[in-house]
C-alpha cells in the first residue's frame, strides 16, 4: 500500500465515520437524557434522504434547501412523536420497554408510508453541482462531496459540543441527564427540554440521510444494516457520551475502510464487532461510558 492509497483509505474511513457519527449522536444523546432507545431513529434517517429526492428531484430546489428542510421536518416529526407518545408513556411510569415498542411500531408504520409515497425501487441521488468532481492535494485525489460530508459532520459535532458545554440550556440538559427529578425540583421544565433534544436528535438523523443519499443507496431498507453498526458505535463509545461517539465512530470507520480495502467488506464488519467485544471485556461501559450522562 502506497502512502497515497493509505491516505485515501483514511479519508474513506472518515467519510464512513461521518455518517455513523451523525446518526449515532442523536441516539446516544436521547439515551443519555431520557434513558430510552429510539428504534425509529433509522426511519428519520431514511426520511431525510427521501425528502431530498422530493425537494431536489420533484420541486427542483437546491440540495442546500433540502438540508435544512430535512432537519426541520424531522425535528417537528420527532418532537411530535415525543409529545404524543414518549412523554405520555413516561408520565405513566412506563419508560424503557414500552418506548422501545412504541418507537419500533412508529418505524414500521413510517417505513410502509415511505414505500407508499416513494415506491420500493432504490433511487439515485445526485451530488450537488457545486461539489461534483475531485479535489487534488499532492498525490491524492478525493471526491469533493465526501470531503464536504466530513467537514459538515465536524461542524455539527462542534456545535453540539459547544451547546452542551457552553450554553445555559446545555447545562440544564446535562442536569436532567444526571438527575431529572432534582433538576425539575430546581425549576427545570424537563418535559419541554426532552422534547427539544429528541427533535434535535431526529433532525440530525434526517441530515445524515440527506448527506448519505448520494454516497449510499436510497431505498426503504437503507437504515437497517447501518443501524446495527450504529449500535456498535454507541456501545463502543459508551452510552450517552458524545465524545465517545466521535472517537468510536472514527475507529470503526477506519476499521471498515481498511478491512474492506485489504480483505473484504464482510471481514471488515466482523472485525468491527470483534474490536467492540474486546473493548467491552476490558471496559464494560465502553470507551467513555459512565452510565447515563452527556458530555
Amino acid at each position, binding site marked *: 500500500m502506497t502512502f497515497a492509497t493509505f491516505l485515501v483509505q483514511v479519508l474513506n474511513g472518515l467519510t464512513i465515520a461521518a455518517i455513523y457519527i451523525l446518526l449515532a449522536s442523536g441516539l446516544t444523546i436521547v439515551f443519555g437524557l431520557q434513558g430510552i432507545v429510539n428504534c425509529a431513529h433509522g426511519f428519520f434517517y431514511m426520511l431525510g434522504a427521501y425528502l431530498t429526492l422530493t425537494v431536489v428531484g420533484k420541486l427542483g430546489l437546491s440540495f442546500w434547501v433540502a438540508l435544512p428542510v430535512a432537519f426541520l421536518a424531522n425535528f417537528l416529526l420527532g418532537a411530535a412523536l415525543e409529545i404524543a407518545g414518549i412523554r405520555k408513556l413516561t408520565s405513566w411510569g412506563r419508560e424503557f420497554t414500552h418506548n422501545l415498542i412504541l418507537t419500533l411500531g412508529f418505524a414500521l408504520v413510517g417505513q410502509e408510508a415511505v414505500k407508499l409515497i416513494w415506491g420500493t425501487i432504490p433511487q439515485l441521488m445526485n451530488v450537488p453541482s457545486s461539489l461534483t468532481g475531485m479535489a487534488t492535494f499532492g498525490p491524492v485525489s478525493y471526491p469533493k462531496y465526501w470531503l464536504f460530508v466530513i467537514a459538515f459532520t465536524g461542524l455539527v459535532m462542534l456545535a453540539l459540543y459547544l451547546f452542551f458545554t457552553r450554553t*445555559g*440550556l446545555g*447545562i*440544564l440538559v*446535562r*442536569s436532567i441527564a*444526571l*438527575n431529572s*427529578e*432534582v*433538576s*425539575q*425540583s*430546581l*425549576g*427545570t*421544565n*424537563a*418535559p419541554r427540554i426532552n422534547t427539544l433534544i429528541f427533535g434535535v436528535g431526529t433532525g440530525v438523523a434526517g441530515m445524515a440521510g440527506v448527506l448519505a443519499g448520494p454516497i449510499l443507496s436510497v431505498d426503504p431498507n437503507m437504515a437497517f444494516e447501518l443501524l446495527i453498526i450504529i449500535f456498535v458505535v454507541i456501545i463502543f463509545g459508551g452510552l450517552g457520551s458524545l465524545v465517545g461517539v466521535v472517537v468510536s465512530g472514527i475507529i470503526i470507520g477506519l476499521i471498515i475502510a481498511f478491512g474492506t480495502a485489504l480483505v473484504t467488506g464482510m471481514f471488515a464488519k466482523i472485525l468491527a464487532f470483534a474490536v467492540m467485544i474486546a473493548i467491552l471485556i476490558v471496559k464494560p461501559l465502553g470507551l467513555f461510558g*459512565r452510565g447515563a*450522562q452527556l*458530555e
Partner: protein
Amino acid sequence: MLELKGIHTYYGESHILQGIHLQVKEGECVALLGPNGMGKTTTLRTVMGLTPARLGTVLFKERDITHYPPFEIARLGIGFVPEDRGLFGDLTVVENLKVPFLNLRQRQGRRWAEVEDRIYALFPVLSERKKQMAGTLSGGEQQMLATARGLISGEEMVLLDEPTEGLAPRVIQNLIGAFRKIMEQKHTMLLVEQNIHTAMEIANRCYILEKGRIKIEEPMSVLCQRPDLLHQYLGIVQTIDSPSVNR
C-alpha cells in the same frame, strides 16, 4: 405561607402519609422530627410534587399546588435540598448553581453576579471551588452547595431534608451558622431532621411524625423541656441543653 390539609400519600400500594396537617408561616423555621420511615421525606416530596398526594390539599400562599408538576412548584419560589443532596456530580460548582438560576432568570430577570455574591457571602468556601466538579467536594462542601442551590430557586421558602446527616460536628456547626444567617434574612424554612440538636439551634416550632401522622406540635422551646416526649417519640434519653438561640 405553606399549608398541608389532610394529606394522604402512597408509594404504590403502601399508605405512607395518613392525613398530615401542618402549617409554615412566613419567616418561620419549622422542624419535622421523627424516627426513620415515618414519612418525613415523603412529606417534602409531596410538597414538591415529586410524589403527589392522592388525597388532601397543599396550599402555597393560598394557591392549591397539590397537582402542579415539580418544576412549576419550584418556579413559585420553593427551593428543595433533597436527602443525600442530589448534586449533579459531573457538573462544576458554578454549573450546579446555574441550574436554578437559569430557571429563575426566565421569570424574574435576576443577574448572575448578584445571585453569586449572595451565595458566596453565605458559603465563602464555594467561591474557591467554582470550577471543581461537585462530585469531588467534601461532604460539608456538598451540603453547602446543595443548600445554596435550594436557596437560589427558593426565593420564598426552602425545604431541607436532613442537611446535617453524616457530617462531622465541626462542619455541622458551620452549617448551622449559615442556616441562622439565612433565617435572619427573613427566609422561611421547613426542615426535616434526625439530629434534634440541629433542630433546636434553628427551628422555632416543630412537628413530630409517627407512622404517617402528626403526633405532636409544639414550639421548639417547649419540646426541650419535655423529656417524656423526647423519649417517647424520638428515643432520646439524655437531657438536652436549652437552645442557644431564643427567638
